[in-house]
């Protein structure tokens, strides 16, 4: 079953294998499948695009961002993000578009809501708990009279 799921990654892997075997012939075949690279109007649009895809997760190869991944679905989603940008959607609208289809998981920076509250607050709570513990220990030690050994001056 795990192996079967892993095989879902087969499309990019198959291309890689094909590329190794058929290095000279592959350029044309790839060109058919992959559309032309995205053409940006200006540097600002390109910056906005890269900032956006860097914080979106590739749903297939899950520990890569949409910007890094070579999976076919990442390519498709980058194109979709680009088209949405072109159609005048805001960054938030584009994120919502993807969350509606793929779930909160696509966001590397999940939004603050009921079910992500613990995720956002836990580091702060842990720090607070640690701080309280340290303060208590320090105070307790402060009240205790020093032992003979501790009194000794070096």
């Amino acid at each position, binding site marked *: 079953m*795990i192996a079967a799921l892993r*095989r879902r990654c087969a499309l990019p892997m*198959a291309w890689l294998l094909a590329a190794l075997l058929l290095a000279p012939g592959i350029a044309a075949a790839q060109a058919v499948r992959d559309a032309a690279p995205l053409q940006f109007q200006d540097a600002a649009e390109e910056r906005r695009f890269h900032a956006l895809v860097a914080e979106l997760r590739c749903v297939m190869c899950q520990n890569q961002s949409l910007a890094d991944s070579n999976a076919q*679905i990442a390519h*498709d989603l980058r194109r979709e993000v680009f088209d949405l940008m072109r159609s005048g959607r805001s960054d938030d609208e584009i994120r919502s578009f993807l969350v509606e289809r793929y779930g909160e998981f696509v966001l590397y920076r999940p939004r603050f809501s009921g079910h992500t509250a613990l995720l956002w607050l836990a580091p702060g709570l842990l720090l607070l708990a640690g701080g309280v*513990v340290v303060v*208590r220990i320090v105070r307790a030690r402060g009240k205790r009279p020093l032992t003979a050994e501790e009194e000794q001056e070096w």
Partner: protein
Amino acid sequence: MARPATLSAVVIGVVFFGLVGLLLYGVLVSDRADREALPSPLIGKPAPEFELPLLHQPGTLFSSQELRGQPYLLNVWGSWCPGCRVEHPVITRFAETRRVRVVGYNWKDEHADAMRWLEQFGNPYWLVLVDYDGRKAIDWGIYGAPETFLVDAAGIVRWKHVGPVDDTVLAESLGPVLDSLGVAR
């Protein structure tokens, strides 16, 4: 004097064992076969509307409206996809029970390859929709093949499975959903 120290020990203990528990949970979950499967936010929501060409009638567009009235299983596949070959006999057997229509969703494929694949292994599908540039698949939240959806008569997505469907998935996961929808065996 002893009280604050005890309280601190309790806080440290709770945090420590809490983290250990969390890690243990992570280790146990990592053993699950579907650990990489994303839960679909589409469950309980209307299936996306589409107009897609049919594999066997390339000129004709088929509308999602035409699927209304009866539930259907949407099976995403491609001739390039090894997992789809694995589940093909299972899908075929399920289609032969005629419990619900099984609609093929030929994703990111090439026409000749898809036709050859069906000829070689058999065509279990009621009809096969074609989405070669993968644009409509994004509306479904499809991110790989195979993936399988169950859509009810009203067009609501009821169930999704990521990865090859096997007999256990049919019996233990899809079966109860079909029963709850009142689909005759």
